[in-house]
């Protein structure tokens, strides 16, 4: 089991030109459980992820979660969408988090499906909810909302009640059924 600090050091020695900017996962004065995330740009993401999965000291076999946060109007935020990767190593029993920030108008992130096939549906969900495009995804369709839905509803600038999608629908009547 490697601590988050060790993992960051190893990453730095391997990818020296990337400044990972590690920060504590827990903010707001709560107890720091030694959990750290690093920031990373979209371009080096596949190499770093492949290293994290395959290096004998890392062995992050499992992509626990892949999700996203819209940092619109978030205090102190500089980028809009943060795609979050949560990794777990079953071999070494350690965890690690990465955040990949992208911005409008073209939020594009490389797909993790070649590295962890399980990323497929999670990336579809992030695409559906935030409109982040995953380059190299085999089947990037909407997964939760219905066909024909246009918007990306978890974006902060999308109104809670939608934009009229609820009323635009076929009606079954007594005599038509």
């Amino acid at each position, binding site marked *: 089991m490697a601590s988050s600090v060790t993992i960051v050091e190893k990453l730095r020695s391997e990818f020296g030109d990337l400044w990972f900017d590690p920060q504590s996962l827990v903010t707001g004065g709560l107890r720091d459980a030694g959990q750290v995330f690093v920031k990373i740009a979209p371009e080096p993401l596949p190499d770093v992820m492949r290293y994290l999965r395959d290096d004998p000291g890392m062995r992050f076999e499992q992509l626990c979660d892949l999700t996203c946060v819209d940092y619109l109007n978030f205090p102190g935020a500089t980028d809009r969408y943060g795609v979050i990767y949560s990794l777990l190593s079953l071999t070494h029993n350690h965890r690690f988090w990465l955040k990949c920030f992208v911005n409008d108008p073209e939020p594009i992130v490389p797909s993790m499906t070649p590295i962890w096939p399980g990323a497929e549906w999670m990336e579809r969900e992030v695409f559906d909810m935030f409109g982040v495009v995953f380059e190299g995804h085999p089947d990037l369709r909407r997964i*939760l*909302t*219905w066909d024909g839905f246009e*918007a990306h*509803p978890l974006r902060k600038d*999308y*109104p*809670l*009640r*939608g*934009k009229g*999608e*609820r*009323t635009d*629908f*076929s*009606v*079954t*009547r*007594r*005599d038509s*059924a």
Partner: protein
Amino acid sequence: MEKYQFDPHATSSDDVLTTRLDRLVDFFRKRGVNWARKNSLWPMPFATACCGIELMATGASRYDLARFGAEVMRFSPRQSDLLICAGRVAIKMMPVLQRIYKQMCEPKWVISMGACASTGGVFDTYAVVQGIDQFMPVDIYVPGCPPRPETLIEGIMAIQRIVDVEGIKASGERGKGLGLVAEPRYQVAVAGEGSE
């Protein structure tokens, strides 16, 4: 001899039936099918959320929907004549619900159970249908969040009254809606009132 009146709601004090066979046959010709149908409603449970738990409680032993002849939950719309929509319906789910309604054979009735199915409830969001009656016909709305089993049973009894009064019609004639007001036949007793 008094003219015989067959009372389907007969209580135990008058459960002995003496009649002439031709009058009984006459009664069943006129009202029998509806009487049989209303006492053997086969519900199609469309339970999408927490209301479904209450629907299950209604079917279970304590509330015993079998007393109303409606305990045969059919999971095929082809075999059921009462659609109970229990729970919130997402917009993506609405075509499924409509298709189930279309697959049911005439005559058919629909109960919209709970605040969510009837109005959207607290889920006033982009993804939730704000009342299934916007997209398909509904006969009875059962209020509550969730409705107690008694309330649902009252709704089913209201459907029974509709079946009894309105009965089977050719599907073309059912297009105008039933226009019935569903009210309990009995006076609801309130504590401290009507003690005389």
